[in-house]
């Protein structure tokens, strides 16, 4: 059972601490995106990394289109992994769409999670009445086209990086691995589920302590969206980083680490 789960979500675990940090990557990436962050927490936390089913090195065959037609499918996977590994008081760090996956998991099983750290969350990308998500259906169609036309690019160009070289990240470039080499059909489906979804109502049901890390300039999840998330969670705190881009944990790892440490202290 455990072995199957580990294969299904390509679960990586290291560290012996009883405190757990559970990292979930966002759309288009995999667990490699945490490699600037995790070395700074591995001494005081047990680190758990996963690839969402359909991403990275997860078991592609486990991608059931019905189950993953909603983010709930991924949330259930996270709950199952926590149960199977007997994890408690988990601090879950989730980027982008996974912030909503973590929200759904914590609403369903609040006792499992002690804290949620969201990086660049958005409960809805499409504009809706007086809500400004930043995108229209047409923009998402363009994204899908870009996905389509980069299918070939994905299979060869994305540079190789793998885990296991946390202390010497410069080695990573030499290693053969896949980054963002997702099955195009699954990537398209996951893009639709991610960018066409609406989880605004789920935020209100969340009672877990939450930190929102917001990049000052983020084309995907704007600062207004970050404030919306903060205003709709009962127990949350918003930290705006002086950074640009949707992945501050990659472009400004030190600022991100500092924000997380300040929050956890």
């Amino acid at each position, binding site marked *: 059972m455990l072995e199957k789960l580990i294969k299904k979500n390509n679960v990586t675990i290291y560290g012996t601490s009883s405190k757990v940090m559970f990292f979930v990557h966002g*759309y288009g*990436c995999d667990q*490699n995106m945490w490699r600037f962050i995790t070395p700074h927490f591995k001494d005081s936390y047990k680190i758990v990394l996963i690839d969402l089913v359909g991403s990275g090195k997860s078991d592609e065959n486990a991608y059931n289109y019905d189950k993953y037609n909603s983010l709930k499918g991924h949330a259930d996977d996270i709950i199952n992994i926590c149960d199977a590994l007997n994890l408690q008081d988990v601090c879950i760090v989730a980027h982008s769409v996974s912030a909503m996956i973590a929200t759904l998991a914590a609403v369903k099983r609040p006792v499992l999670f002690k804290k949620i750290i969201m990086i660049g969350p958005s409960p809805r990308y499409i504009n809706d009445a007086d809500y400004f998500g930043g995108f229209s259906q047409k923009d998402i169609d*363009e994204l899908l086209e870009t996905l389509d*036309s*980069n299918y070939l690019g994905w299979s060869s160009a994305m540079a190789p990086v793998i885990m296991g070289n946390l202390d010497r990240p410069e080695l990573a470039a030499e290693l053969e691995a896949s*980054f963002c080499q997702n099955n195009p059909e699954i990537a398209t489906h996951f893009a639709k589920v991610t960018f066409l979804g609406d989880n605004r109502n789920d935020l209100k049901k969340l009672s877990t302590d939450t930190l929102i890390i917001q990049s000052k300039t983020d084309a995907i999840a704007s600062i207004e969206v970050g404030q919306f998330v903060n205003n709709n969670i009962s127990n949350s705190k918003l930290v705006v980083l002086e950074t640009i881009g*949707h992945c501050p944990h*990659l*472009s400004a790892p030190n600022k991100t680490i500092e924000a997380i440490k300040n929050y956890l202290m």
Partner: protein
Amino acid sequence: MDYKEFYNTFPSGFFSSLPNGTIIEANKNFLELTNYSREEVIGKKKFTDFLSLGGKIYFENVFAPALKLSGAIEEVNFNFTKKGGTKFPVLVNSVEIKDISGTHLYTHSVVFNIAQRKQYEQELLKSKKYANEISNRLTAVNKELRSRTKLISKQKLQLEEFNQHLENKNRQLSSFAHIASHNLRAPVSNLLVLKDFYKENTDLKDKAMLFSKVEIVIDRLNETLNELIESLKIQGNKNIMYNAVTFDTVFAKTLAILDIQILDSKAVVTSNFCEAPTIEYPKLYMESILLNLLSNSIRYRAPDRIAQIHFRTEIINNEIILIATDNGLGIDLKKYGHKLFGLNNTFHRHPDSKGVGLFMTKTQIEAVGGSVTVESEVDKGTTFKIILKKHK
């Protein structure tokens, strides 16, 4: 070489940007491609300003993380927007330039216009989609064909079964015709002769004797007719009821029915059904088969020795076989083998012989799809082997 000249005359677009995306240098080709003046771009525009919103999502979620993680990225297809709004497809390679301490200073990117190649690519994509569609349709047709083939094989199997059934029926009919022509004709011609005698004879005593003979023949004729009707019932029965039959139970019942005969004959009857103790079989047939075989063995026991009769089951090739062995009179199979299972064929000048049982037995066995064979030696004994049910 004048590198500045080289940079500006290079036949594809170049630009350099800061970690925050702001473009700090661009070559002539890039400016021509995008239709902007140098002043409009340098220090003012970012990489993502040339992308549509959909392209930006891809840039932020896939392109930027990959570039950050590995320091370089190649052959990513974006649609760039020219001044004025026209779009054109490009391929982008980017590399991060860092100082010795690893701090990211700027990013160099090269931009290839692929408008013509893109058209070709789109045609290829279209063909690929079309091929996929055809492949899907073929798969569907194939599936349909397979399901039809399955149906046909099923129908074929049913036909074969039906054919088997017809063949059986045919055999039974021809056997029945044989019986009708021989076994009924004999007593009828007997009766005709007796009738003539009776008419011609005037002696009352003789007449009475002849009439008693007529009575005997009529009784036999009636018996034969009843048995024929009984066997027709078996043959005509299409919906045979199957039951869970325990050999030991049915055999005990048979022994009880033949209690007196067994006592009279002092026969030693034994059985062992361990190897196949039960079977799904019509219970009435099983009772009748065991009764016929056992009563035959008792009836045709050898008078000079104690009758030993043994019933057992075996499983051979997945089939349950019933084996009945005796040390009785035996039958000369060379002489009578072909007639063994006919109606009213008797092979012994024995007072009880009626030659009914084996015909019934065979009919019942075959009605369930089984078969029967016999091994025998005169004055040594007989063994009946019955394959109760053919395995399918």
